[in-house]
């Protein structure tokens, strides 16, 4: 029952956060100097066209009326229409959101699989060669500019070695002759679901470089956070007791110690995940990955305010959900943490 109570309270907070964010971003987007009616019409609007568009888009109404109309449309599933493309934003999101989620999830997977074990070993063997190497990798990971690293990897793996593609989610050959039947928008998943193994292989090869590029920062983070937590935890008495009791070191490190050390790491990784939803813009541009980052950046540059507002809200929803999950996981892992 405590859980249910807690969840309900958190959901209420979430709604409050969403409403506040939507109001703030709506107001900001609307008071920035711009003329959405003119943008709707096109690059060469006439005065008549602008006037007509202003009425059609309801831009002559006071701000709170516009907000009310936007919010009620949203609650009915109408995510708004892009001023630039005249298209329902929902259609765009259906395509861009899964693409981004797939990329970011792949990056987080790499970060977890590479970063956490390295962090554990590094913390356990503090001062050793492995530790120094790992710390070097960690610093490199958080310091290297993603843009630069992406170009470098392309140069190495595409131009010089020719073993990985330069970008995009699929090659032209597969897109033309073995297209994936899109069900979820996650190409790796869809190709498996439709037994399209050629496409699966192709999608996998295409996601390697961008996911790895995106992951380097998270790897660096994961190593640092895990290592410092590990060092702390390994100094505890119960660890000593476990070792004395003869429990294999593998278990001591990766089960007993990690369980307590991992909380700061997954918190940071969780936040990094949500940040990357739009923060992956640099990777998206370099690798021609059709994701949310480039979608919203183009919208910001052309002040396509419906897209800006809606995308911000979508990302806010993710933040809220991920935060909630992190808190639940933390409560689950650490009995000292109670749901308050």
């Amino acid at each position, binding site marked *: 029952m405590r859980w249910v109570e807690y969840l309900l309270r958190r959901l209420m907070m979430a709604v409050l956060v969403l409403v506040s964010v939507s109001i703030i971003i709506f107001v900001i987007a609307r008071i920035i100097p711009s003329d959405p009616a003119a943008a709707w019409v096109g690059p060469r609007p006439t005065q008549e066209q602008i006037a007509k568009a202003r009425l059609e888009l309801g831009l002559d109404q006071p701000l709170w009326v516009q907000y009310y109309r936007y919010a009620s449309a949203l609650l009915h599933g109408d995510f708004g229409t892009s001023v630039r493309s005249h298209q329902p934003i929902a259609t765009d999101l259906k395509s861009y959101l899964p693409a981004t989620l797939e990329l970011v999830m792949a990056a987080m997977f790499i970060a977890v699989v590479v970063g956490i074990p390295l962090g554990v070993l590094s913390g356990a063997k503090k001062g050793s060669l492995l530790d120094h190497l790992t710390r070097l990798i960690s610093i490199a990971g958080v310091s290297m500019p993603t843009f630069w690293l992406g170009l470098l990897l392309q140069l190495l793996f595409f131009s010089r070695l020719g073993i990985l593609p330069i970008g995009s*989610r699929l090659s032209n050959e597969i897109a033309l002759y073995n297209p994936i039947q899109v069900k979820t928008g996650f190409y790796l998943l869809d190709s498996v679901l439709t037994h399209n193994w050629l496409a699966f292989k192709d999608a996998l090869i295409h996601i390697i470089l961008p996911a790895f590029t995106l992951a380097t920062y998270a790897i660096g983070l994961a190593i640092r956070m895990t290592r410092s937590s590990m060092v702390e935890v390994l100094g505890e008495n119960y660890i000593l007791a476990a070792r004395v009791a003869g429990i294999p070191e593998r278990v001591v490190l990766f089960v007993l110690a990690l369980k307590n050390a991992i909380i700061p790491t997954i918190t940071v990784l969780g936040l990094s995940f949500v940040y990357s939803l739009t923060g992956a813009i640099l990777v998206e541009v370099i690798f021609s990955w059709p994701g949310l980052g480039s979608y919203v950046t183009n919208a910001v540059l052309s002040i396509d305010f419906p897209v800006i507002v809606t995308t911000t809200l979508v990302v806010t929803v993710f933040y809220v959900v991920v935060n909630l999950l992190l808190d639940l996981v933390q409560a689950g892992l650490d009995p000292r943490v109670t749901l308050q």
Partner: protein
Amino acid sequence: MKTKNRPILIVLLLVLSLVGAQCTPKPAPEATAEMPAEVTEAPAEVTEAPATEPPAAQANRASIFVYAHPTEFPDLDPAKSYSNDSVIMSNCYETLTFYNPPGNDEVLSPKLAVSWESNEDATEWTFHLREGVKFHDGELFNAEAVKYAISKTTELGIGAAYIWGSVEEMEVVDDYTIKFKLSYSAPLDLIASTGYAAWMYSPKSYEEKGSDWFAEGNCAGTGSYTIESYERGSRLVMTRFEDYWGGWQPGQFEKVVFEISQDPVVNQQKIEAGDADFTYELPPDNLEALKANADLVVYENPSFQNLVGLLNTKKPPLDKVKVRQALSYSFPYEQFITGVMGDRATQARGVVPAGMWGHGEELTQYSYDLDKARQLLTEAGFPDGGFKLLMTYSSGDLDEQQLGELWKAELAKLGIELEVQGMNWEAQWDLSKSDPLQAQDIFVMYWWPDYVSPFSFLYSMFHSEESILFNLGYYSNQEFDKLVEDGDVMTGVDKEKAAEMFIQAQQILLDDGVSLFFYDVKNIHVARVDIKGFVDNPAYPHVVFVYQLSR
């Protein structure tokens, strides 16, 4: 001590080897929000990616034309599209008439209309349509379809729909003859060749399926290719329309793939490796290397785009003619063109770009002459300058930025302080639409015509406006206005005469020093050497008519 030093030494060694192993030039700077305009130094030589596909796939590859396109496609609805989507539209849809590339004797050639005529004062136009043409959905192209398409486009009223503003009534005389009655004289044959808002699309598809169906990535035109699939932000695939009225020859492309690829360095790598057959907007610094590459052909052609600096004629001291003229003499044209633009631009002469009808070879062209500028300033009462000017330009545009920097240095010599401010277009335009006395002094922007006529340049940027739109120098001259309006009317009747009138109008602007005309932009496209048949057509910017190509 020894054991402690060893790890540090090894680490140092590793760092050194990492640094040494990087056989790349200077790392690219962290990109800012103006991502697509980023220019980085790419390596001069890139080896071709080894072929890894089986021969069958390679044979297929030969019949696919891949266009690495640097921007996305906002709107694929033929009734509304008014942007880079014309690259797609031009292969999917067709217009009644076609604007010929330079080098042709005729300005227009038949497309969906085989012939046309007008009455004496160009208020009535009759078009004879091509027979036996099918839309992609199987419907027949006829006069009813033309009437529908134009009505619908006008009814929706956005994008470039205003080009049909003169059309009062359309009469379907018979299946292949349509008559237009205009409320005022207009060059309808020229208007019908526009790359926006003049596409002929299937009434049945538009009625039944609506705008959203088209925008999702579907096509119902008469063009040689139709859209097969569209992955937003990533890839648009077109395939041959077998029943195309022009017929098919062996060697023509089966499929066309438009890859949306925003980074110029990536596009360069793609075309050098042969993954793309055609692209543009590559890093200007690499032009020489590209030209030297035997696998590539660099096409340099004049475009119909130019860069202007509109002077605020309402705000002192630019309300004085002599001050404005002085500014025109203060810009280092040659230094800028050779030093910054290189092969990418030529100095402008008048408002209308070279190569477009209405361009005047005899028009005044200002040159860099500081003494003259100083003299004019003195005559105007500013012998030592002593005032400040604000120049706004589009942030992220490196050329405009450098232009501002160079000009600032020159104006400083005259005692004029120039503030150069890069702004997002929306903000820049918003500022200019406020009170002219509070707005910028110099508005720098590009202009390109919607339909190919000097009227587009002259009317939009210099005709008196009651509420400010694009006349961002706030110029108002009755004589000029009348000349331009009459010129537009004349265009439908006697184009040569119209050209003369437009040239006269341009001379007025030059005499009044209303704007600086910096340069005419050159189109630079890069293609693989085995692509044959490409002819750049400035009336349709960056469009490749794939039907005309072969490998």
